[in-house]
């Protein structure tokens, strides 16, 4: 563990990622205190105005403050990321445990299902599901969960298969431990590290997919502020108000970048292979 902490500390870019994520979380929590204006209050007199003292990042086509909408938008994107990754990881881990621990027919069925899900390009499948369920943030989240659980199931199954063979598992069994006890006390703690890495690296694609679907009009419905939807709204006023196509994109990119940096850093710190490679240099 100490090894892990020092490894992680060395990685400055991962620390920057973690700091940015912390900042984003604070912004999401304190959005009402930080926002200079009401994010959904239209003020038609100030339509499409460029950044000014009153509106630091300008206003949109309904005269709403872009900065306030961006701050509130952080809530949606982060919440979607956390909930989708959380549920997908829980489902994937559970199925991965069943698959790896019991093997046999169940393993076969679950793994073939994973293969079939991976036969679809993921955004296409999420789009088909979200589109059929109808517009709405909940449906977008369901669609992305359906697509995302597979990566956790595969990783978990792999870890279980390698941990299962250890003597301490056999010893626990010999002492009469139940399946449940063996899984929760011996196997899970030893198989969870890769899941944490995958979950951190999984945040970026989830947030990206959610903003993409919102950009296509399937996610959050107006007037709730969401970054992807803001970009789509701004598209029509590109010539008159280029700030509308600029700032929400910056917000998305910073968020994705931060999760990528943190995920890469965690992977390097937890993956012994990457570590030895570094030592070799």
């Amino acid at each position, binding site marked *: 563990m100490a090894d892990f902490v020092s490894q992680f500390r060395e990685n400055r870019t991962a620390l920057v990622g973690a700091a940015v994520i912390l900042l984003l979380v604070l912004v999401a929590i304190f959005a009402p205190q930080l926002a200079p204006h009401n994010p959904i209050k239209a003020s038609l007199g100030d339509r499409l105005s460029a950044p000014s003292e009153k509106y630091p990042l300008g206003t949109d086509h309904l005269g709403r403050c872009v900065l306030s909408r961006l701050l509130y938008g952080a809530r949606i994107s982060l919440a979607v990321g956390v909930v989708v990754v959380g549920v997908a990881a829980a489902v994937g881990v559970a199925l991965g445990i069943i698959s790896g621990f019991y093997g046999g027919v169940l393993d076969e069925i679950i793994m*073939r*299902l994973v*293969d*079939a*899900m991976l*036969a*679809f*390009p*993921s*955004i*296409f*499948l999420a*789009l*088909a*599901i979200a*589109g*059929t*369920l*109808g517009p709405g943030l909940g449906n977008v989240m369901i669609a992305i969960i359906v697509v995302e659980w597979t990566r956790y199931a595969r990783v978990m199954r792999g870890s279980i298969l390698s941990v299962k063979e250890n003597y301490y598992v056999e010893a626990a069994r010999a002492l009469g431990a139940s399946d449940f006890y063996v899984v929760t006390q011996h196997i899970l703690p030893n198989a969870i590290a890769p899941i944490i890495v995958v979950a951190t690296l999984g945040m*970026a694609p989830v947030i*990206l997919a959610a*903003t*993409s679907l919102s*950009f*296509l*009009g*399937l996610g959050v419905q107006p007037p709730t502020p969401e970054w*992807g939807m803001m*970009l789509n709204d701004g*598209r029509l006023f*590109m*010539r008159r108000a*280029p700030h509308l*196509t*600029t700032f*929400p*994109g910056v917000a*998305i*990119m910073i968020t*994705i*970048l931060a999760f*990528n*940096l943190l995920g890469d850093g965690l992977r390097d710190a937890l993956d012994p292979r990457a570590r030895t490679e570094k030592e*070799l240099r």
Partner: protein
Amino acid sequence: MLNYILKRIILLAPILLLVSLITFSILYIIPGDPAETILTGPGGAADPKAVEEFRVKMGLDRPLHIQYLKWLNNVLHGNFGYSYMTEQPVLDPILPAFRATLKLAVASMILSLLISIPVGIISAIKQYSLIDNLSMTGALLGVSMPNFWQGLLLILLFAVYLGWFPVAGYGENGDFEHLVLPAITLGTSSAAITTRLMRSSMLETIRQDYIQAARAKGLSERVVIGKHALKNALIPVVTVAGLNFGYLLDGSVVVETIFAWPGIGKLMVGSIYMRDYPMIQGCILFVALVYVAVNLVVDILYTFLDPRIRYETKAKAK
């Protein structure tokens, strides 16, 4: 070799069956009754008689497993269903749309390789140099930049302000002018991933003993890198070509929507707005089949490129 290919194809059968089941189920996750949902216009509730007629016409009145088997039978005979909007076979618009998508995907892939292979090699042989740091920062930004935003910025700069390229559209059969901006959008984001892969693969290769041996033989650095190292370092890039294609297909959804490129991504988004469920089903099934086929071809090509794989499977068979 033939055995290997046959084995791969046989292993695909259960997966394809599940793919068809997943695709078929998409129609049945519509909240409520599909016939009613489809016929309910903005004006209000649908006429019950019309709903009943529609249900019989589209076969929605039969038991679910019969519907599935009938649908599967049709699909196997090349009939992917009929559009709710035009009542024409859904494959009619899917095929030309896919041709447009393929054009965009191929152009993007070529651009992506043209960027990522040289940049990846230079980054690896000049590890931790300024150029390596710059290109790795660029790759990281490229990975983190959403396609739809990059597309909008390119339109803003090159179409709206500079006027070098059209804002959007397909022109006459997808000419070069119209292809440039969407291909840059898709190609650069794919290049961001491939450059990182190319670099790490090259870094691993140049530490191998045979590279040392080639140098010891007195070969020039150019020959060592360009001939001995490159061949082996390219293998992982080929392995992920299938995944990369899936990535391009995924990206085509928003990129085609932004640039009004009449491909399968745009067709899919359009049919979602129109609630044309058979068209959604047709698009997703078609895309999945193409993706599976591409991955199969990549796997087979890979065994040609890397004889070690063939020996391994042979050794295992014994």
